[in-house]
């Protein structure tokens, strides 16, 4: 039995005691999955599992706090759940986690680019077949085979946790844990001068349309309607259409995720203009790992480092002037 069939069976078994189960279903076309909220066994039959399950299902959980819900997760999504549990934004007893090993998800921007290189339009993909590490797309009467490695999201290449770190039902054989992330991409970026880095961000942020999708898709952005970026008193960010305002909004987002971001990459995935937002959060994660030896979303009973302190900090120099 495939992982999908096993998941469906497990969900159907637990469904009567749950309000709903959040998973992925078919979206508006063959390439796009969409989150679905399964309430009946018929809904469960619509469940999908595979490299197109790009959404982080944990994002929806805080909206249902206090209700008993189920959720289907990949490894990265499970880290978000752990972080939410750690911060008491969820109760462990209220969430039933279904999981299967994940070998990476596709980055639709990459698929779009590789199709464009062949003169094809992503909007015309009629069917997608997944076999092993190959995605076969039927576009405009021809079959295009893409290697999943080539079109996988960046986060999957450095993912350490392919298996959910928290789960009630785990189907299939766990995959082997990969080596820890060495933040090569950051080191590469930081070879540039300060001025070049600033110029880079200004250029990227110029495209931002302030749709706030990055915030809304983030599982850890739980302030939602009370976001300081939209408050007028105090007015952290104005409505002015200015690079510095957009950039500052991203600084707010990053700082509010310091020590909490689980690098699910939703901010970057949902960005309609492809701003590499995850880089900012990865920088903070790297520094926090160095300073406090802490990785968000890996241990339920750990305390987020910025909500704690040590009288004698090991890695902070107290700056003898």
């Amino acid at each position, binding site marked *: 039995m495939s992982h999908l069939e096993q998941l469906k069976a497990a969900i159907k078994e637990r469904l009567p005691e749950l309000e709903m189960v959040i998973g992925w279903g078919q979206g508006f076309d063959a390439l796009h999955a969409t989150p679905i909220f399964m309430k009946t066994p018929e809904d469960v039959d619509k469940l999908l599992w595979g490299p197109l399950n790009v959404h982080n299902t944990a994002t929806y959980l805080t909206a249902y706090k206090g209700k008993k819900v189920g959720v289907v997760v990949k490894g990265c999504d499970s880290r978000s759940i752990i972080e939410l549990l750690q911060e008491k934004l969820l109760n462990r007893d209220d969430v039933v986690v279904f999981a299967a090993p994940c070998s990476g998800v596709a980055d639709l921007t990459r698929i779009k680019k590789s199709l464009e290189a062949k003169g094809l339009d992503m909007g015309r993909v009629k069917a997608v077949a997944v076999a092993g590490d190959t995605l076969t797309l039927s576009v405009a009467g021809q079959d295009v085979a893409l290697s999943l490695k080539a079109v996988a999201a960046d986060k999957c290449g450095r993912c350490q946790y392919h298996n959910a770190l928290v789960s009630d039902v785990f189907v299939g054989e766990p995959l082997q844990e990969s080596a820890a992330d060495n933040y090569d991409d*950051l080191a590469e*970026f*930081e070879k540039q001068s*300060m*001025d*070049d*880095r*600033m*110029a*880079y*961000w*200004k250029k990227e942020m110029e495209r931002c349309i302030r749709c706030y999708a990055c915030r809304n898709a983030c599982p850890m952005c739980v302030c939602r309607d009370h976001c300081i970026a939209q408050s007028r008193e105090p007015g*952290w960010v104005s409505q*002015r259409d*200015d*690079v*510095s305002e957009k*950039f*500052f909004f991203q*600084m*707010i987002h*990053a*700082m509010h995720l*310091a*020590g909490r971001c689980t690098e699910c990459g939703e901010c970057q995935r949902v960005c309609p203009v492809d701003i590499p937002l995850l*880089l*900012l959060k990865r*920088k*903070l994660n790297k*520094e*926090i790992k160095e*300073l*406090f030896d802490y990785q968000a979303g890996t241990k339920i009973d750990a305390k987020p*480092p*910025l909500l*704690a*302190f*040590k*009288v004698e*900090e090991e890695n*902070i120099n*107290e*700056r003898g*002037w």
Partner: protein
Amino acid sequence: MSQELRIVGFLCNWCSYGGADTAGVGRFTQPTDLRVIRVPCSGRIDPLFILKTLVNGADGVLVSGCHPRDCHYAEGNFYARRRLEVVHRFMPILGIDPRRFSYTWVSASEGQRWQHVVTTFTNEIHALGPAPKIAGNPMEKLGALAQAV
């Protein structure tokens, strides 16, 4: 010293603000680039204060609080220490020179130390020169628009 730069200092009410006052009462000479903002505790300082200040055109930001283990509220500066260190290490990726921000601890009786801190930090900022401007001046945009019309 060359042209005055814009340095913003966030000082904790209980120690560093008092320390700066002590320095003033003692008539210690100090550079005049620093504008002081008095905060109840260094723990009150949101790291975003620092980023916002720098984005909006300050040439340097200095935060000063009570020495660790000496906080009026027992542990405010312990939290501040972690946050300030994190924001300091975050700056390089944004393209903001982390040397433009510094944090330190000065107690109310340390007028001399305050003088040393302000002088050293101001000299460092002067060595870096004025910060590259990140925020576009809205009036400039308007001017360009008016020209176009």
